[in-house]
């Protein structure tokens, strides 16, 4: 009932092919009402926009009109028969009648046909109250089924309950194809088809397989599209229809999908992607849509706990006690070892408001700048590299922009697994004919999957990104493909001249770099030409760019490439980091770096510091503090003794686990705030129970700089908001912090951060979401950055010399390990492993090329031991040519495999972002 409250206009708005066609207004008369709509609009959309609700079943405004149900027929003066209003386009002067005796009779009789092959179990049906078929039967006045119920039917068809989250009951299917079309048009997986024909036509997954056995990725688009109970969430079957809705934002990846949490009391019944969500526009993936059960998992800790030693048992205490205890221990450490002996780590999983108060606590109550964020280990090079070149530490486009790209470059990212909702957008554009270049050692799904095929797959050797990006730029510069006008007008001339000289050197040529990267020169040249000569070309990249010893260099190399080709500042272009966690962008924006205050302003900048000092009524240290690796190293060196870890699992996600654990063990006080006793909590003395996103009030900022509201669907199950805990701790440590609510925190952020100046909860509630910069001048935010000029004025080219990583394959460790993600699991898996998503991925496996496997006597499924100079882990082998020879690949969703035991201490030269993506290893079968 709740989801159908949204006004569904039946068909999508007319495709905008040019400014001219979209602007032409057409006036027509519908049921005596004069209606004016843009040319290309369907009669149905025109009518519904005018609140004339033509009946419909197969039409919905998220899918192209199809014309199969025939409920929407109307009479149009001068036309024969009864045209379907969904497939008939408006014409000037058209006179439409949606309600005549004949129309009513045909609609009722069509409905009678439907119901003659439909179970009559409305009262016990899971869709009761949320069934379009039921609604339409009512709307058309169906009163009897004269065909009787003993004719041919589909009522005995078996239900498919194989998917953990939804059921497929073909006996209730009306063959409207909405699920099939959603799978094709929205998700782009093509896992469903209508099979057979005529009366026998039916929906089937794969080759008439179960949903689980089919190619289905469980995104939920089909379930959402289904107008009956054929595809139904199991939670709805169990709980019944929800009775209220809270609009909020998914807490998984950096796409930041908007959802309607549909609830019954304080219990979530289902999460439904919101059509008006700027990032997702009604789409979702298996994680956001279904894998929210962890929020109420029995493993969740709801009471604060303390213990003297990590070998002791945990002891539940009150909030007051834990705050007092923690504050006194931190103060004690500072008294004995100095103010710099403690620090904090903020989390990209938390809200902007939570992150803001954590960094404020560190700076104002800890009196140091030992604040870092987990973005350190993922996208810190992005912030650095883009700031240096463009002047702002963020991606340039909104997600929608990809719909205008003619060439799409994906570097070191695997969107179909890690950013699936954006991947669906991208695939839609690729199906429309955009060309794709994939730069990745591994053959990710985008390289070739139904209806998608990369024009170029540059399968480079791990660690050679910079050689490849330089070679691409080299081709552009030496083949006369430079967008001279763009460079002249928009970029810094001196830096360009220097860079041009550098990049044109023979050692940057594809032929020279081929030796390092393994990418055939001819293929690389073709890719460079394709990118440079495209009308609009956009680059999307992920951790395969940043998590290298040259991560920042690579980001700058990408920026150089985009500038030299003039692929910036317009729709369909840009440089776009795909952020891993839901609030990586926000955590960085909020000043949780040891050297930067909110808004990326350096702590040493006196004016900025004074602004904050005045507002916070405290004196700030002008010296940058310690980064995470420095904190850990200092701890191991006996100089750092206490840490506040906010929603981050250092012992699992950070590289060189042995080193991390040693550092944690060396500290006197480790405070962990999380939902679960994670790996880091094993070494903690204080555990502060956190709140799940469904309990939070605040904002997340996604990869496109979009500030989305997170609204509490239910009260905090721990009794406190996380920002309240931080405020209490700060206050107990001698720096009073208090806010009435999260909105007040955002008001403070806005008052101190120019790019957030126009942001407030009230504004967001009014307009939905904004992309920063959001100011008085741009109250609706900024979709595309650097449109007329770069934020820093002139775009700066930087010399990006390729320096091979010190991590090299050797005789002892001849293979290179690189890491990534799978669709069903999220990051370290603390959330997704506590959901039914485990059915898709029960363990991390090691992908190894058949030739490497054969050489070592490894067959598919074997247990293998993988060793690096840092350590060894055991996991099962998956023999596949998705990885090239010489490269092995795994994920780190499970602590059992503990991939980070073997990753190394190497990190980005500029930001210390760890080099997760290159580790020299050897693999041996285990007996």
């Amino acid at each position, binding site marked *: 009932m709740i989801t159908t409250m949204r006004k569904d206009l039946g068909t999508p708005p007319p495709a905008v092919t040019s400014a001219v066609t979209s602007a032409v207004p057409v006036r027509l008369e519908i049921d005596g009402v004069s209606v004016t709509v843009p040319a290309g609009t369907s009669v149905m959309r025109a009518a519904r926009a005018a609140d004339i609700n033509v009946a419909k079943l197969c039409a919905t405004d998220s899918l192209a009109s199809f014309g199969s149900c025939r409920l929407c027929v109307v009479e149009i003066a001068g036309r024969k028969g009864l045209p379907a209003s969904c*497939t008939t386009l408006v014409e000037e002067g058209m006179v439409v009648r949606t309600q005549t005796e004949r129309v009513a009779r045909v609609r009722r009789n069509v409905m009678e*046909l439907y119901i003659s092959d439909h179970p009559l179990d409305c009262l016990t049906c899971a869709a009761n109250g949320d069934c379009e078929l039921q609604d339409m039967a009512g709307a058309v006045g169906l009163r009897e089924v004269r065909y009787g119920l003993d004719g041919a039917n589909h009522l005995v068809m078996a239900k498919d309950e194989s998917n953990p989250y939804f059921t497929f009951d073909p006996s209730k299917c*009306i063959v409207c194809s909405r699920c099939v079309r959603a799978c094709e048009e929205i998700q782009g997986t093509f896992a469903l088809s209508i099979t057979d024909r*005529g009366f026998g036509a039916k929906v089937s997954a*794969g080759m008439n397989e179960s949903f689980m056995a089919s*190619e289905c990725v469980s995104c939920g688009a089909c379930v959402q599209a289904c107008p009956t109970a054929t595809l139904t969430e199991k939670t709805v079957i169990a709980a019944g229809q929800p009775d209220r809705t809270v609009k909020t934002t998914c807490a998984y990846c950096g796409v930041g999908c908007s959802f309607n949490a549909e609830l019954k009391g304080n219990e979530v019944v289902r999460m439904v992607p919101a059509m008006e969500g700027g990032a997702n526009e009604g789409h979702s993936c298996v994680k956001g849509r279904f894998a929210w059960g962890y929020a109420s998992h029995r493993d969740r800790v709801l009471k604060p706990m303390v213990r003297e030693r990590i070998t002791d048992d945990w002891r539940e205490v009150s909030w007051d006690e834990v705050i007092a205890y923690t504050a006194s221990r931190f103060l004690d450490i500072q008294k004995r070892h100095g103010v710099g002996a403690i620090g904090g780590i903020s989390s990209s999983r938390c809200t902007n408001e939570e992150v803001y108060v954590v960094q404020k606590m560190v700076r104002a109550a800890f009196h140091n700048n030992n604040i870092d964020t987990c973005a350190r280990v993922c996208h810190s090079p992005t912030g650095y590299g883009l700031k240096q070149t463009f002047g702002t530490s963020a991606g340039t486009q909104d997600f929608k922009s990809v719909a205008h790209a003619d060439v799409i470059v994906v570097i070191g990212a695997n969107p179909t697994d890690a950013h699936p909702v954006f991947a669906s957008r991208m695939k839609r554009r690729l199906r429309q004919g955009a060309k794709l270049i994939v730069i990745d050692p591994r053959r990710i799904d985008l390289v070739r999957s*139904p209806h998608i095929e990369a024009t170029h797959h540059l399968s480079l050797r791990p660690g050679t990104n910079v050689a490849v990006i330089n070679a691409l730029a080299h081709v552009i510069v030496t083949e006369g493909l430079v967008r001279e006008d763009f460079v002249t007008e928009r970029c810094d001339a001196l830096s360009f001249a220097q860079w041009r000289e550098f990049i044109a050197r023979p050692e940057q040529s594809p032929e020279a770099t081929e030796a390092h990267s393994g990418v055939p020169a001819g293929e690389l040249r073709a890719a460079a030409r394709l990118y440079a000569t495209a009308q609009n070309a956009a680059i999307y990249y992920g951790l395969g760019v940043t998590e290298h010893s040259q991560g920042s260099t690579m980001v700058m190399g990408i920026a150089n490439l985009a500038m030299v080709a003039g692929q910036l500042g317009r729709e369909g272009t840009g440089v776009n980091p795909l952020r891993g966690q839901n609030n990586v962008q926000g955590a960085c924006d909020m000043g949780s770096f040891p050297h930067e205050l909110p808004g990326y302003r350096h702590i040493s900048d006196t004016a900025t510091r004074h602004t904050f000092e005045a507002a916070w009524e405290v004196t700030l240290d002008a010296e940058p503090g310690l980064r995470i690796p420095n904190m850990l190293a200092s701890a191991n060196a006996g100089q750092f003794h206490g840490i506040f870890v906010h929603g981050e699992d250092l012992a699992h996600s950070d590289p060189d686990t042995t080193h991390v654990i040693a550092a944690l063990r060396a500290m006197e006080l480790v405070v962990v705030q999380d939902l679960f006793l994670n790996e880091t909590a094993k070494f903690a003395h204080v555990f502060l129970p956190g709140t799940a996103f469904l309990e939070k009030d605040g904002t997340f900022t996604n990869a496109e700089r979009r500030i989305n509201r997170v609204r509490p669907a239910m009260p905090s199950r721990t009794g406190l908001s996380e920002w309240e805990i931080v405020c209490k701790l700060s206050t107990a440590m001698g720096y009073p912090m208090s806010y009435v609510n999260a909105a007040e925190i955002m008001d403070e952020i806005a008052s101190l951060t120019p790019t957030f100046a126009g942001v407030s909860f009230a504004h967001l509630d009014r307009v939905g979401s904004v992309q920063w910069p959001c100011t008085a001048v741009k109250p609706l935010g900024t979709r595309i950055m650097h449109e007329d000029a770069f934020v820093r004025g002139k775009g700066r080219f930087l010399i990006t010399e390729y320096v091979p990583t010190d991590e090299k394959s050797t005789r002892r460790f001849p293979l290179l390990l690189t890491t990534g993600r799978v669709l069903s699991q999220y990051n370290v898996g603390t959330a997704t492993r506590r959901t039914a998503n485990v059915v898709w991925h029960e363990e991390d496996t090691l992908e190894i090329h058949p030739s490497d496997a054969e050489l070592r006597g490894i067959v598919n499924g074997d247990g293998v031991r993988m060793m690096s100079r840092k350590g060894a882990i055991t996991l099962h082998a998956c023999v596949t040519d998705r990885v090239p020879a010489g490269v092995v690949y795994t994920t780190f969703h499970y602590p059992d495999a503990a991939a980070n035991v073997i990753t190394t201490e190497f990190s980005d030269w500029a930001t210390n972002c760890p080099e997760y993506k290159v580790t020299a290893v050897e693999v041996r079968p285990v007996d």
Partner: protein
Amino acid sequence: MPRQGGTGHAHGTVPVAHAVNTTDPDHELAALNALLARSPTDAESLLPLLQHVQRQFGYVSTGAMRVIAQAFNLSRAEVYGVVSFYGDLREAPVGTHVVQLCMAEACQAVGARTLATHAEQALGVRLGESTADGLVHLEAAYCFGNCALGPSMRIGDHVYGGVDADGLDAEVRALTSGTSARAMRDALSERPMISVDPRAASVLRVYVPNDSAARSIGADQVAEAIARLRPDLEIVRNGSRGAYFLEPLIEVDSADGRVGFGNITAAHVPDLFGATGLPGRDHPRSLGLADDVPWLRQQQRITFARVGLIDPLSLSEYRATGGWRGLERALRMSPQAIVNEVKGSGLRGRGGAAFPAGIKWQTVHDTQSVTKYIVCNADEGDSGTFADRLLMDADPFQLLEGMTIAALAVGATRGFIYLRSEYPHTMEITARALQLARDAGMLGPSLMGSPHRFDITLRIGGGAYICGEETALLESLEGKRGVVRAKPPLPALSGLFGQPTVVNNVLTLAAVTSVLANGATLYAGVGRDRSTGTMPFQLGGNVLRGGLVEVPFGLTLRELVQNFGGGTYSTRPMKAIQVGGPLGAYLPESQWDTPLDYESFAAVGAMLGHGGVVVFDDTVDMGVQAQFAMEFCAHESCGKCTPCRIGSTRGAEVIGRIRRGESSRANWQLLEELCETMELGSLCALGGLTPMPVRSVMTHFPGDLLSPAPVRARDEVLL
């Protein structure tokens, strides 16, 4: 009701190719990979590849679908969706020899239902089942384009006409006794096809027709017998003149012209050709000069003028009889001038919808696009019609010429012929004609030496009637399920692969050659009112003199059926005539004086459609026919729109109830409303026109519905 000629025992069959051991998956996979290595993997090549797999392995296994999906970069669901849609593609193997009985109206009119019952009893299976020994698979099919010579049967690539119980038994015996070694090879190249080109004047020539229908009743055996007996004779395999009641119609040269001999079997050959020289007009079996046979002489053949006269694959005979003149003229004209010519002729689409061809061409002409297509709809699925098949069997170059003219008119460089798979012989002829035309420079990069480029690809349907609907046809050409598209957009604006596309019927495109060769005025001068030109009517079912009758619009139905048709074959009184295929009305005697033109037929709730005319005698139970109309729709519905998908099944059920006398009044009302719902609510003409035959029975033969003969099992289960 066996026809003259019958099936005879002389026919052999080619077993469905099951050469590969389908139980060996490795072998199958290797063979499949070999196939894929040769096949392009763009969307349009999917159906041809699946058809190849079906032919080679007898079915398309799930293993094969997986591999094919991978190769074509499609999902498994998509490939499965396609395989499950088309009747010709099977997901599991069936009996080695597939015996298909035509169950369409024209064959029903001459006893197909009785024959089917006999076949089921003889084989011990129902339609759609295979015998326990796995040798024979029996199933229903709908029309082989042999409607004047029914009942028809297909085994392998051979169609049999005039099949009776004995004939069927004999063929089945031949299949199951392993005597297929005597099988006649079907490949055209291996058939006696001795045609000398150019004709040597001194040689004695005999003409033995080679179209599917003539072959279905023994033309090949006649040719073989003559060749054996008289090696000195030149046997020309002309196409048929379409006078099917005379087939096999053998002709010999004489000083005055070609002398015809009707209904000749191999047994007559010694009598005719035992002596030296050739039999003459004085021979007792002579029909006189073939041209003078009144049935032929009374026609006005424009499109079919050279049909039956020439060797279909002789380029020189085609040219000698006026071929390529239209194209030659078109090459000298501007595209707009060609379009104007077609507009001026008043030519309307002969596929059934009768939309003015020139206007359609104008739309495509005016639409800006680099790529445009000409698509010939040769999916002649309407039972009772065979004009497309005859034209393509007997005069294929005319179609190619017409398509090329269309291409010049609209600026297309690529064409497709979408031919139904039920016409295996036509497939071979067309493929050869295309190659000959290409070799002669009539197709290809430089048409007749001009800078114009055009080529044609032959595609074969998958056994789905709905693909005769133009948008479903386009979907099928794109390698998809043959599901109807909603219009708009019109194919003329956004057709094949989204490009502007001319979709015309075979006869429309063929007629264009005459329009261009002789001028619009001449063509427009023939016919009646807005129905200009001639219409090739096809007389079939229970008719004495069945065949193709090309006459100007305007003749009455009675004149056609009596003057040409000569009444029923059974000699019993005519009861009903179905015009326009399975979606056409059954006309009672009171309507037989309706002139044969589009508007007059529309005025009486009927339609000309593609010109099929099927005669029924007074033994027909019109209630059965009404029910069959719904059953056929249910069988062939693409399943997209609700009125057709569910309505047709419910329609058959409701008619069944009415015929059994169950709540007749209420069900009658329900049936009327259902007809309205289907007519007004359906997405395409299949659902929209199925009510036409049903209503005609309700209106004109209510007694057959309300007080029917006892319902027999056969009437109920056809599909």
